């Protein structure tokens, strides 16, 4: 960047004759030059390409040919897609409320705790720093039958019958979701704590003088003032659960997304369509569907923020 400036300075009077404003414009575009190339080549062009690929029959072996909405029609008629669609939304509608409820309750009480505050906060936060792929293996181990699996061992010691967890079509999805919720709590708690601390103390003092109960303060002051934080976390964690992949892939490597596709989310379907079946065009159509779902969520967020 400085080299450019020096060359311009050396090329005689032109640079020195420029006004400060003109120089600023040149500096600005100079600073933006490399990043703009990056955004065009690595973000915008691939975006258009993804839309284009979704209307082709591209596979690794043969060149792409335009097939119109064929991939989308095929997707709509594919029972696996609807199963995956259902799973993806199950991750979302179970994961988001459960994780937000737990993290809010923890943050609400943790905010009032002084004794060993940062130690307790650290305990909740540590799982957030872990690698999802690694933790999936730890949880996979927990879910094994006796004598290997910790959870079944504990259940057995209380005389509770063994649970199949990852082997059952009904229990596998919550079992896969648990490590995802667990790993995300720390982040949400920290954000809630930041939101709680941003509420001016005078509001609470005024409420106490007015004789409001703790419950009423929570309902009438804390929660309404926490709305921006809440909206941010709802959207952030919803997007996270809709894009779940690492945990699902690693917790059942023999049959990713199994048993019987009962844990398969959309991103895993995309991965398998593209890199196991090599149906790139069909996979691209699936990514467009994921994009549309995320777009709707973002628009709902904008709407909610505006109502504030």
């Amino acid at each position: 960047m400085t080299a450019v400036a020096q060359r311009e300075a050396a090329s005689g009077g032109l640079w020195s004759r420029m006004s400060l404003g003109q120089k600023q414009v040149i500096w600005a575009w100079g600073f933006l030059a490399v990043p703009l190339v990056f955004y065009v080549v690595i973000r915008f062009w691939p975006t258009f390409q993804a839309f284009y690929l979704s209307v082709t029959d591209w596979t690794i072996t043969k060149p792409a040919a335009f097939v119109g909405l064929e991939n989308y029609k095929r997707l709509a008629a594919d029972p696996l897609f609807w199963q995956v669609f259902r799973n993806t939304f199950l991750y979302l509608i179970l994961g988001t409320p459960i994780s937000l409820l737990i993290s809010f309750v923890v943050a609400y009480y943790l905010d009032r705790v002084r004794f060993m505050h940062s130690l307790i906060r650290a305990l909740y936060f540590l799982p957030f720093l872990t690698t999802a792929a690694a933790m999936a293996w730890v949880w996979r181990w927990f879910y094994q039958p006796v004598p290997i699996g910790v959870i079944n061992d504990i259940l057995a010691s209380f005389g509770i019958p063994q649970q199949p967890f990852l082997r059952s079509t009904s229990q596998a999805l919550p079992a896969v979701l648990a490590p995802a919720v667990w790993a995300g709590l720390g982040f949400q708690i920290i954000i809630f704590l930041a939101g709680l601390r941003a509420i001016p103390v005078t509001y609470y003092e005024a409420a106490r003088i007015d004789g409001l109960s703790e419950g009423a303060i929570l309902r009438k002051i804390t929660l309404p003032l926490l709305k921006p934080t809440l909206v941010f976390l709802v959207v952030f964690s919803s997007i996270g659960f809709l894009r779940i992949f690492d945990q699902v892939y690693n917790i059942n490597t023999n049959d990713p997304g199994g048993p019987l596709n009962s844990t398969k989310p959309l991103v895993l379907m995309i991965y398998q369509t593209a890199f196991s079946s090599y149906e790139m065009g069909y996979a691209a159509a699936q990514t467009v569907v994921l994009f549309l779902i995320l777009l709707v969520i973002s628009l709902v967020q904008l709407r909610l923020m505006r109502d504030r």
Partner: protein
Amino acid sequence: MKAAASSQGLSMPNIRPGRIVAWTLLFIGGVIMVTPLLFMLSTSLKDASQVYDLRVIPEAPTLDNYIEILGDGRFTRWLLNSTLVAVIVTLSNVFFDSLVGYTLAKFRFRGRYIVFIAILSTLMIPTEMLVLPWYLMASQFGWIDSYWGIMFPGMMTAFGTFLMKQFFEGVPDDFLEAARIDGLNEFTIWWKIAMPLITPALSALAIFTFLGNWTAFFWPLIVTTSAELYTLPVGLSSFAVEQSIQWEKIMTGASIATLPTLIIFLFLQRYIVRGVMLAGLKG
């Protein structure tokens, strides 16, 4: 961080029984949160005969698993790959995101708003949608199985740029004007004057970028095919499959993947928590 002191007004000096109950429950919850990590670490210190012994403190702790796994050479290679990728991508983001954020916050020029909206709009596009075109691009240019192949999609991010712009807007123009009058060029003003003023934001960006790239699985899984180029999460996944039921080996691998970030956290807890708060509030 004016907020740090504010909630202290809430806590009364008198200790009520409710407080003790709440504290105890919070503490127990916190211990439950780290239990999976404790089990992982403790099992990594056991030999095969002790794996089914569920005591958290191993009877005869041994580092044999670590010696065996690290001695095999693959994990050290994956550690190196992950470190290299995460560090370079982080440096690139700290440099470029803040350069763009600064330009958009502090320069007045035609097209500024369009550039900002264009960059921001890429936030709406999920990575998964770009992965297929990236893969195509990587195959065409021979980037499959290379460090650049793993790194190129993340060299700059709209989130980081947006975050940096927010913070640079808080830097007073007077500082920059004074430097201009002193005859400093714009690059030096950004690098030497403006950047040091937003160090907390830069560290927040660095923490997020490093963590995101250290734990990244989806793209490295796609773009690497030979074991030499695997990052730690991808390598661990392939290693665990091959170990099948040797859980003490798998837990050792998982510990190796997890410990670096946990150790960094122990040293930088204050900065990391503050960074997450900053990013969450402004983001």
